[in-house]
């Protein structure tokens, strides 16, 4: 591929001294029980599992595995807290508890960030600058809604649902806990929350904060475990609402499992977002946006810009620049402040990504993967993209959930839009162009819940997030995120 003139050479000439984040302020217990009715308790199952650091493959702690009996206890505690305290509390007082959680997360932000990177493998820069501050902001935002809910539903009175069962993923462990807990609590519900099996630690740290904040026992219960624990929550007759973030496959199973019950549900599922770059875009900015879109958080992002569509006339330039930029990304120690791409979250996920790297090549795609060394231990994937792929290829249609981008080209606006929408998913999208009218025509045309124009992967507590089509239903965040936790009625 021809390199455009007057571009910098990126030949790996840059070396950075390590700048690791300290962990001496971090306390991780050897073993964690279940947080039920305001205290940590041993699981009735008597069983524990390891949570490991994916960058070293070393065990961080032993985590309780909740069985159906434990889930029963958690739901009973949540029910008691709902009817006894939380559901009756003055909304303004409820709000004050939630404000307090936000403040205490801010105070312990350094610890939360380090634990998040240790347990999940994400770069400390992202934990520190994105996950933890956004989690605190989310509690702060919804805290203020607690005594103002009537203003959000003109002409209708609303009331809480009761006990909410919440199952969250491993890609943004603390932030997803915040997205789930904050609106549920503000609306007057109590909660049984299950963090992901590979990343339970920050949720358990959050349980400490919740206890320290003095929330009445049982308002928030956190039960750790694997898929069977999640299923026990989903199927529990004492739960009024299920909120799930995870794969589309599991989302469908949950929607089916809830059929015939009166439980309400919101699902935030997979994605395969189109990131569309027009020839008139600011190309260097677009390249940064592409990098942020797909390589942020190792590509473990449901709204990742995993399909790139470049207008044909600038395709060579964009691909060349992207390739250069990709070579500069630093893969390695998540705690190092220089690191751009941390560890892949688990062995299972790494296997899945590597499988897709093979599938894409077998389908005829050309793989471009950054060079460079990765640590010997731990789970790593150097950033990569495919060219020469087409709409029907699996790497174009299926969610890889890793740092792997599929690049295609287009000539006309209509072609770009049609290709962008040619997917069962509809979570997010991106458009890069200098023309305002073109932006809005594209953002209107893309069938997705969040569309970024000349930016990508931006999040905010005030901004609703959620999918069209098979990317899920319901919204989290903002005014619209309140719907998920209320029903009509005085």
């Amino acid at each position: 591929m021809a390199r455009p003139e007057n571009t910098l050479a990126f030949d790996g000439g840059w070396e950075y001294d390590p700048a690791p984040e300290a962990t001496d302020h971090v306390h991780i217990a050897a073993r964690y029980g279940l947080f039920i009715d305001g205290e940590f308790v041993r699981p009735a199952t008597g069983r524990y599992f390891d949570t490991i650091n994916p960058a070293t493959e070393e065990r961080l702690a032993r985590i309780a595995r909740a069985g159906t009996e434990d889930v029963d206890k958690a739901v009973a505690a949540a029910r008691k807290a709902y009817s006894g305290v939380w559901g009756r509390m003055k909304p303004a007082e409820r709000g004050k508890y939630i404000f307090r959680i936000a403040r205490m997360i801010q105070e312990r932000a350094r610890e939360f960030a380090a634990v998040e990177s240790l347990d999940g493998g994400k770069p400390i820069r992202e934990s520190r600058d994105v996950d933890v501050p956004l989690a605190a902001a989310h509690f702060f935002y919804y805290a203020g809604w607690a005594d103002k809910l009537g203003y959000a539903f003109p002409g209708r009175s609303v009331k809480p649902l009761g006990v909410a069962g919440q199952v969250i993923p491993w890609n943004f462990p603390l932030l997803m806990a915040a997205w789930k807990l904050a609106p549920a609590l503000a609306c007057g519900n109590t909660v049984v929350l299950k963090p992901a099996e590979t990343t339970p630690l920050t949720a358990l740290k959050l349980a400490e904060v919740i206890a320290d904040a003095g929330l009445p026992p049982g308002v928030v219960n956190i039960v750790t475990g694997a898929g069977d624990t999640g299923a026990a929550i989903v199927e529990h007759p004492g739960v009024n609402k299920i909120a799930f973030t995870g794969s589309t496959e599991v989302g469908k199973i949950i929607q089916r499992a809830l059929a015939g019950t009166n439980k309400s549900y919101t699902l935030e599922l997979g994605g395969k977002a189109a990131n569309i770059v027009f020839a008139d875009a600011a190309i260097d900015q677009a390249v940064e946006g592409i990098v942020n879109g797909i390589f942020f958080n190792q590509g473990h992002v449901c709204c990742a810009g995993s399909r790139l569509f470049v207008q044909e006339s600038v395709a060579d330039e964009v691909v060349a620049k992207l390739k250069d930029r990709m070579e500069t990304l630093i893969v390695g120690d998540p705690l190092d402040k220089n690191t751009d791409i941390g560890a892949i979250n688990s062995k299972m996920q790494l296997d899945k990504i590597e499988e897709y790297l093979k599938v894409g090549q077998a389908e005829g795609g050309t793989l471009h993967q950054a060079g460079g060394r990765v640590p010997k231990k731990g789970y790593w994937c150097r950033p990569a993209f495919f060219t020469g792929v087409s709409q029907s290829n699996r790497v174009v249609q299926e969610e890889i959930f890793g740092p792997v981008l599929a690049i295609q080209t287009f000539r006309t606006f209509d072609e770009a839009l049609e290709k962008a929408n040619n997917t069962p998913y509809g979570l997010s999208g991106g458009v890069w162009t200098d023309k305002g009218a073109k932006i809005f025509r594209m953002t209107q045309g893309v069938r997705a819940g969040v569309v970024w124009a000349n930016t990508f992967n931006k999040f905010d507590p005030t901004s609703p997030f959620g999918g069209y089509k098979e990317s899920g239903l319901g919204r989290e965040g903002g005014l619209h995120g309140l719907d998920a936790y209320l029903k009509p009625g005085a």
Partner: protein
Amino acid sequence: MAGAADRIPVAKTYKIYIDGKFPRTESGRYFALEDKKGRVLANVCRSSRKDFRNAVVAARKAQPGWAKASAYLRGQILYRIAEMLEGRREQFIAELKLQGSPARQAEKETDAAIDRLIYFAGWADKYQQVFSAVNPVSSSHFNFSVLEPTGVVALLAPDEPGLLGLVANLAPAIAGGNTVVLLASEAKPLSAVSFAEVLHASDVPPGVVNILTGYRNELTSHFASHMDVNAIVACEGGRKARREIQTLAAENVKRVVFRRGTDWTTADAANPYLIRDTQEVKTTWHPIGV
């Protein structure tokens, strides 16, 4: 001089409504709708899965254009439907009576149906302002959330009231830019077919509303499982039917709305949240700066 008895009235053939046309069911099957005395009022189309699929194709084809129509235009078209219904008020009252409604109730229902159309005609260019938001994000971006139609809506209309129940659920779906495939009341299907004629005379583009008659227990599973349907609104069905609907709907993560047990004659049963039920929220981010 010819007496009244010398002229034989021309009876209407009740057909279904797909893509702006009035075909018979491709199945060639009918069921006889009888009055209380057992006299056959009409042979009603017993629509098949194929009819439903044809209707979905028409609805999908019509959807982008209808969604793109201005809110003002959608409102005017809904208003036009009301005008046409008002003009045929006597016919609808007579038809409801024929299907078993007491006279007073038939009148009230027809009038309420007309008024319900006016109500949603007025909402067409307002619900967006009530339900959308500009979001004060912390970064330097202009961020806003708007409602967009979810797409093709499959609607199982309530049995009662035969006309008003249909209108009360159809109007909010199309006011919001969706296109609809609707299964009429099994008890009072004639009103639905006549209502299709009203739609046809009201500048509603072909395919925006498609009306089938038939047996709910034959068609529900197809309504719920079709992969090109975005949402299903079910106004009838017990626990077993609801389980079936949601189980099949999960195949493509349909939005499932159950509206059983609503009294559609009350004022409470008309609100903009019925529009919002079949809307998606889209959030757009745009940087502020150069």
